[in-house]
């Protein structure tokens, strides 16, 4: 059976689900704070509204400023499509392994940081500078997690990792737990969530991601917002694919039956993740920017520890 429809499904799925995921997180947070909160579909409405507006450009904005939203959105979109969601059997997932995935996200971030510098304002610079500082620590932390997994699976290919976790009796391992914690910390940082950054704030001196995209408006802003949403989805999918791959289909089971199970379990995982994220964000305060280095340094060390624990548990 041709895999093309499934590939396309994957591609569309990640884009379509992403705003909903953000909506759920916002809803949970509002409820926990005692507000009613916006409707779950509010993110879709926001995006559509922005898309229809005209784009306002500063006189000093260059062509890069206009090109970057498209490039980064598509890069993140592709990256999200690479992560196995409901099945491990897609060709898309082989385009890039875990390392290349991190790098692809890196390219997107590189572009966005340049956009922050493009207009030549002080806030754009603050945002880019801090974003890159955070990324420079988060990226290696994520790669150490990758190493840990790769040491266990002997592969960095995501479908293989998922299948390995599904089929082998891996058991609960200290190193995997450490890896999970580390990856979660990275995910929080990369998605500009509390305690690293607050996606809802516009308090000038503490914002990071929002400062960087301050000059964007209209369709460009819509793309950037959408990209952030897809990225959140990507990270949740990634955690699910590596640590909780249950319910996923494989290349052999690629078909409508497995699709149901795969999609169902995927939805459950995403929903749970969104709720947990909402709960976590309401129960913790944002930290100072320079504490972030320590936070991510911790993630980095946890990643290395995970690798070393793996040797210990495997008896070298």
């Amino acid at each position, binding site marked *: 059976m041709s895999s093309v429809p499934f590939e396309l499904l994957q591609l569309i799925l990640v884009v379509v689900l992403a705003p909903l995921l953000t909506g759920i997180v916002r809803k949970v947070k509002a409820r926990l704070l005692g507000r009613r909160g916006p409707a779950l579909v509010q993110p879709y409405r926001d995006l559509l509204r922005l898309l229809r507006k005209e784009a*306002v450009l500063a006189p000093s904005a260059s062509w890069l400023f206009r090109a970057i939203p*498209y490039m980064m959105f598509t890069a993140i979109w592709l990256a999200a499509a690479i992560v196995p969601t409901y099945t491990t059997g897609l060709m898309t997932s082989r385009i890039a392994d875990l390392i290349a995935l991190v790098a692809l996200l890196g*390219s997107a971030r590189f572009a966005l940081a340049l956009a922050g510098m493009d207009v030549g304002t002080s806030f754009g610079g603050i945002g880019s500078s801090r974003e890159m500082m955070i990324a420079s620590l988060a990226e290696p932390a994520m790669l150490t997690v990758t190493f840990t997994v790769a040491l266990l699976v002997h592969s960095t290919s995501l479908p293989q990792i998922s299948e390995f976790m599904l089929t082998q009796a891996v058991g609960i391992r200290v190193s995997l737990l450490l890896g999970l914690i580390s990856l979660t910390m990275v995910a929080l940082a990369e998605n500009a969530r509390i305690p690293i950054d607050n996606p809802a704030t516009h308090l000038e001196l503490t914002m990071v991601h929002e400062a960087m995209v301050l000059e964007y408006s209209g369709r460009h802003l819509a793309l950037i917002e959408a990209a952030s949403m897809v990225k959140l989805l990507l990270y949740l999918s990634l955690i699910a694919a590596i640590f909780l791959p249950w319910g996923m289909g494989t290349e052999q089971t690629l078909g409508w039956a497995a699709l149901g199970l795969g999609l169902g379990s995927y939805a459950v995982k995403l929903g749970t993740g969104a709720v947990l994220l909402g709960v976590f964000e309401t129960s913790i305060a944002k930290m100072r920017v320079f504490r972030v280095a320590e936070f991510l340094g911790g993630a980095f060390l946890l990643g290395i520890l995970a690798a070393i624990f793996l040797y210990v548990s495997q008896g070298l």
Partner: protein
Amino acid sequence: MLTALGTGLGLYALASGVGLSGRRRFAAVYGLSAFAAAVIAIAAATALAEAWPAESATLPLGLPWLGAHLRIDTLSAFFLLVVNFAAALISLYGLGYDAHDAEPRRVLPFYPLFLAAMNLVLVADDAFVFLVSWELMSLASWLLVLATHRRDESRSAAFLYLLMASLGTGALIFAFGILAGDSGLYDFAAMRAAPLGAAKSAAVFALALLGAGSKAGVVPLHVWLPPAHSAAPSHVSALMSGVMTKVALYGLTRLLFDLVGPPLWWWGVAVIALGAITALLGVLHAVMQHDLKRLLAYHTVENIGIVVIGLGLALAFRADRLDALAALALVAALLHVFNHAMFKSLLFLGAGAVQAATGERDMERLGGLIRAMPRTALAFLIGSVAISALPPFNGFVSEWLTFQAIIEGSRLPQWLLKFEVPVAGAMLALAAALAAVCFVKVFGVVFLGRPRSPKAAEAQEVGTAMVAPMAGFAVVCALVGILPIAMIDLLRPVAALLIPGSGDALAGSNMLWLVPLDPGRSSYSGLAVVAAVTVLALVLVAAIHRFASARVRRAPAWDCGFPDARSETQYTAGSFAQPLRRVFGTTVFAAREHVDMPAPGETRAARFEVTLKDPVWEGLYRPIGQAVSLVADRLNVVQFLTIRRYLTMMFAALVLLLLIVAVSQ
């Protein structure tokens, strides 16, 4: 192949002669150089692609009883390709850059000489020819650095450079001394044939690391590199950073993989550690740096570190007879050699274009050049993405392969290596991420934003002669990133030569897929990424413009409601680096920020100053310098004695020698 080489060398000699002739015939010098480089590069590429057998020749020059041995095998051919391909484009750039050069007549005679010397190093097949060319390369580049001799810092950079280069040559002389033994068997064939004991081969290893490492800029021997590379005229900087460091790595590879015999596992430990430290320290330096060319030079240190990690892995795998993995690591390292030559040359040429257009190297006085110099900016952007190891460009491919080799490090039996390799991998990841930070800074501050000085505001795009070579490099960066198989094919014979029995390296790879070991495990497709992103982005643009909105309005920047027309309010390179300076700088470089705020009522400007100290300089070089100075001061007393005291010295010498004779009888 030898014919092509001979032709090329002859043309270089001719070009050097033309350069020496006094009048400024720059077109002839650079034209001939470019042509010679192209001839050799094409021949080398053909030799690799068609797997020509090694060719050798002996000329009646050099040491009289030995002759000058030359030999081109696949390793030489690969490096010939790297050196001459880059040199050809850089020479073309020289045609345009010459007009911007302050004292071109100090460049013209030595430029072809430098190229010729690098070529000779690569084909030398005996220790004497190798070292003569090696040191000639230093000599020529020293003179090229001194082309900007009127600046004090150029002279001190040149001095330090030549001194360190000679230290390295000294170490290599010793290494060859051990390899050749007492009898003077200086040709490489004899060295390969003569087995060494463990102690001797370890000594050769250490000396080779010291000798080639000092030329390549491996920490702690890197201190000369940034000042020297940045002091030279920009196209020469490109040659030194992009090309000459590769020749140094050739020396290291030739010695460690070919001449010294089978490696010991702990060599890998040492080399990987040095590589990781080099990569990290280099990039940290670069982040703190605001002089554009010096920053690029520090990135050379970083990238050398990355290559050295790969070579170290290859050594470790080979010592443990994991030949397929060794071949993977070696291919990764050599591919990075090629890639770095491409993007670093591109970046230095870009920096040269910026300097030619604005007269500035200080990033704090640049900005907004993307509007005045769009073509240079695009090329520089591609270089920046490539060096940051981001897809879809070439830098990513080689670093990805290095990571793949690192992940296989768990197969090494030694505990030390098992632990070291992931840590080195983590450091490499950190270095790569920091490089991205650094190049956001570079591109953002130099090309984006608004001009920070009048010169930057008045800049104009440089001529086609300068843009075209940059475009050429950019295209190669993209091509190798998208279709790495083209280079992998050329590298397979090299891996087969140096690691016999490794089989076909990266056998599963093809046009679409890059597969390090076997197809199921890990894969990457640059072509697919580029195709997908391009198609999706085009669809997206079309859809949004068609169905949503395509309107654009120009309005003043928002800037949270505080827009300020003055360009000083922009973020600068210094402020961009501040978070990382806080995180890393205070511990590694003892970074201190001094704010000198005038008291209320005072009218003077406030001053902000950052001081950094290089730990290697402070901990190693300064003490050595002080010791030499102290000894020189103490010994200098001998110049100012009376005749009677001199006679006493003579008398003492005589009595001492007589005593020695008396005792020995």
